[in-house]
């Protein structure tokens, strides 16, 4: 048994639950805790940069909902002012996304000049200038045949690798759909042969989407198995942990497992994401009622890697009930930082066991 015992309806601080200081007593755990906590200052917001994209993918969340109809603001000084205002508001990390940020490199440069920590979500078809020193997440949805069919893009993986091979900013993000689980073998093999870094995402349906990419319980379990196989096979190149695999392929989505704290799902403005997070559209406005890192995603189906990076990480408190759960949380945070922060090097995972996400008491 782990956790607080419920004795006659009242919680007691029992001897089964370890003290936090006991969890930190092992030198390797203390070291990892000190390594990750240096980044607790990160406060994110996300920004749609343009409503244009050079490819069109099935199941793209950007082209759902109202945000795609916002007008574009391409004025670099407006973006500079926005970044300065964001900094004053306490934001320390920007995620530049939708629809395709590589189409507006001048805006990316301005953001980077004002806010040095961040990442860009791109399809990788057009290379982002090296002067923009953010992490770059290149979305991969399968092999070239699948990309041609689902994304209407020819030779996409080849082009992505050409653009970003050897680029320390780059992390290739393989999105598992219900249809492409086995294809990851050949894609991973190609990426690893070119010494690229790889992490995993799980397709999370936009609101109303019931197409063939949507996962079911069986495909989620197959995905989990494949993720762990590849993690074990390519530990240097695959930025992931067993707990990442568990959290993102659980039959319950992230919201049910961890209580998503993005404003869209969280009315509280007291502290954390509910207080500071905003999702700006291309016209530089934002709407609290839809603000999250993947707007217009169906919340019960959300297993998105970006959402998990904030939502799982924020639940430190729930992961201190036993050593393996805490180690799993540390692996998750270590992975998230390696994927999202330039210069952060992932350590060896501390827990290889499958640990069930802690339930809300």
């Amino acid at each position, binding site marked *: 048994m782990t956790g607080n015992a419920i004795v006659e309806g009242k919680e007691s601080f029992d001897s089964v639950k370890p003290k936090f200081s006991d969890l930190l007593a092992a030198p390797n755990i203390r070291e990892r805790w000190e390594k990750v*906590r240096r980044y607790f200052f990160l406060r994110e917001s996300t920004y749609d940069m343009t409503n244009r994209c050079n490819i069109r993918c099935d199941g793209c969340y950007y082209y759902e909902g109202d945000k795609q109809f916002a007008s574009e603001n391409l004025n670099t000084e407006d973006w500079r002012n926005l970044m300065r205002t964001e900094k004053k508001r306490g934001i320390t990390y920007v995620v530049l996304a939708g629809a395709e940020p590589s189409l507006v490199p001048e805006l990316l440069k301005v953001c980077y000049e004002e806010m040095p920590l961040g990442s860009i979500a791109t399809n990788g078809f057009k290379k982002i200038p090296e002067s923009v020193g953010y992490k770059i997440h290149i979305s991969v949805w399968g092999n070239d045949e699948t990309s041609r069919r689902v994304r209407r893009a020819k030779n996409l993986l080849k082009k992505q690798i050409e653009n970003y091979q050897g680029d320390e900013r780059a992390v290739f993000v393989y999105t598992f759909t219900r249809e492409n689980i086995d294809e990851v073998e050949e894609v991973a093999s190609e990426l690893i042969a070119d010494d690229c870094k790889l992490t995993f995402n799980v397709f999370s349906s936009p609101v109303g989407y019931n197409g063939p990419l949507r996962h079911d319980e069986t495909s989620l379990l197959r995905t989990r198995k494949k993720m762990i196989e590849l993690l074990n096979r390519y530990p240097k190149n695959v930025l992931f942990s067993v707990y990442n695999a568990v959290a993102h392929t659980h039959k319950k989505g992230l919201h049910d497992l961890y209580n998503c704290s993005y404003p869209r799902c969280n009315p509280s403005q007291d502290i954390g994401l509910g207080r500071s997070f905003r999702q700006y559209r291309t016209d530089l406005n934002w709407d609290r009622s839809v603000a999250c890192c993947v707007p217009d995603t169906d919340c019960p189906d959300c297993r998105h890697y970006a959402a998990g990076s904030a939502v799982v990480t924020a639940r430190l408190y729930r992961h201190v009930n036993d050593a393996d759960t805490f180690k799993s949380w540390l692996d998750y945070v270590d992975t998230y930082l390696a994927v999202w922060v330039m210069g952060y090097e992932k350590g060896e995972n501390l827990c290889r066991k499958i640990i069930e996400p802690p339930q809300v008491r």
Partner: protein
Amino acid sequence: MPEKRDMEGIIRHVTEVIIGELKLEDITVGTFNPDMDLVDELGIDSMDLATIALVLQDEYKITIDEDDYPKLKTVRLIAEYIEEKLTGKN
């Protein structure tokens, strides 16, 4: 367990924990205003607060519920929360 469990002692100890955990260099226990808003004025966030709560839980052998974090906006409010828990236990 910290020695002094009266309100003044708890305030002092909570302040020490916050200064230590957040590695605040410009503030001392003597200059720390116990009514300062930790989020608005000191800029702490949920992860900092969770860390502080876990350390205080250990030291006072109490449980600080995750849902109560938003209430813990100042050192004085944290101290009052701890005192209530200790009194409830006794």
